[in-house]
């Protein structure tokens, strides 16, 4: 997957939830779990796409076969799926929830942006994807008249929102807990600081996701 890594866990009894919802994964040897959106849920498995950028993602990427990884979820608000003309717009590791989202929406078109050709190899995970590589940007290729569901870096989401005000946007923030306990993931939403884990991570959708389940599980890698 280019520079990204795919972590595959045995699903056990854990529900995959709605695309755009996330799981807290306990990185072996680290104090705090890491929030990851679900990439795909093939039969009996949960897949997570990782960008190895720090100690936590490194520890998760290095999980050995059969090693147990603690998971909590699905958490937060997912994408609203009742959209007539969906278009997935993603940037970099922000494409992580799109394979599952694409499957649930019946393989709609996708527009994906990456910083290099190597990173763009991950586009193979998303069906029917048009790919742009920097310096080209997804916003330059964004068609009008579509229901945009987007995930990516903050500047990309802000630019998408400027062009498509009704877009559903999946945001990101550092999180210690993922279930409303730590207040660490506060972001400004409609002028107020709110917890992204309970009010998001998908904002702009009108319908809330599943209520957070707060019973963790150990799943095998």
């Amino acid at each position, binding site marked *: 997957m280019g520079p990204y890594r795919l972590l595959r866990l045995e699903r056990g009894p854990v529900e995959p939830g709605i695309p755009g919802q996330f799981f807290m994964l306990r990185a072996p040897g680290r104090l705090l779990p890491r929030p990851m959106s679900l990439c795909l849920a093939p039969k009996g498995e949960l897949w997570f796409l990782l960008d190895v950028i720090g100690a936590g993602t490194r520890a998760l990427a290095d999980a050995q076969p059969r090693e147990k990884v603690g998971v909590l979820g699905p958490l937060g608000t997912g994408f609203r799926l009742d959209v007539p003309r969906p278009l997935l717009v993603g940037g970099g590791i922000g494409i992580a929830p799109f394979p599952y989202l694409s499957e649930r929406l019946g393989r709609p078109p996708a527009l994906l942006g990456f910083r290099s050709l190597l990173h763009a190899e991950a586009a193979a995970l998303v069906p029917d994807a048009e790919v742009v590589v920097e310096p080209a940007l997804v916003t330059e290729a964004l068609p009008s008249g579509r229901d945009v569901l987007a995930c990516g870096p903050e500047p990309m989401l802000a630019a998408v929102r400027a062009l498509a005000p009704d877009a559903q946007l999946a945001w990101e923030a550092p999180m210690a807990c993922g279930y409303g*306990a730590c207040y660490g993931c*506060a972001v400004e939403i409609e002028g107020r*600081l709110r917890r992204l884990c309970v009010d998001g991570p998908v904002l702009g959708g009108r319908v809330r996701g599943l209520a957070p389940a707060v019973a963790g599980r150990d799943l095998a890698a």
Partner: protein
Amino acid sequence: MILNASGCLDALAAPDVARELDAFVTKTVTPLPREGNAPVRIAETEAGMLNSIGLANPGIDRFLADVLPRLEALAVPIWVSVGGFSADDYALCCSLLDGRDEVAAVEVNVSCPNVAAADEAAHEIVRAARAATGKPLYAKLSPSLADIAAVALAAAEAGADGLSLVNTLRGLALDGRTLRPALATATGGLSGPALRSVALAAVYTCYAATALPVVGMGGVESGRHALELVAAGASGVALGTILFADPAAPGRIRAELSAEAARHGFASPLAARGCAHDPVVKVENARPEARRLSTLKV
């Protein structure tokens, strides 16, 4: 008695977790609403985590009107943590809580490292709070005090019924790439394993100095850690950072604590309270024949 550390659990967002506690301690409430500090608010460190939430809360009026009734529905005893920027702030919150039957106890947070401290000393704030409420009053102290036992004694003389030990330590983390502070406020409160031995020392010292009940907290991740705080003098143990990684920690640690206490020969965890202060008891040799052998002259 297992509680949560203030600010480490939202009982309304996770009621099943709160119901596993012997009492739920609220996030600190101040007279006026506070949005809290700007993000980034948290960072993982080598042996702990930093937070700089900045006492985000709805303010005492909305807390009493909207939050407290919903907390009461959980049927878990409620301790309300109060904060402020002057002794009057604390007194105001305490007087408003005094008439509320839902409130089992008040914790006076005189030790948040992420907001400006009140001008008054801890014992002056406790005295003002004491005058405003007849509820059981716990003073939550900072581990950064030069002489925590002296502050604990002063709090006791000012009318505190108990101590919550300890709040976080001020710490700093730098971003690995930019070498700039990871948190928007630069420094934050350090919690987790790094705080464990600091908390243990504070509980040990304050138990020896005062006769007050103590809720010990700081880096507890297991029943063994909880038992150590009890042995140092705690009559209750609060869970903080571990709740972020493991929402099932209250039930797990409760079971581990009972097993660990039994393993040490205590009838209950509380029977171990303060044993760290007792002289070491010489262990009787359980095998008389071995004793005889050891006295043989060769």
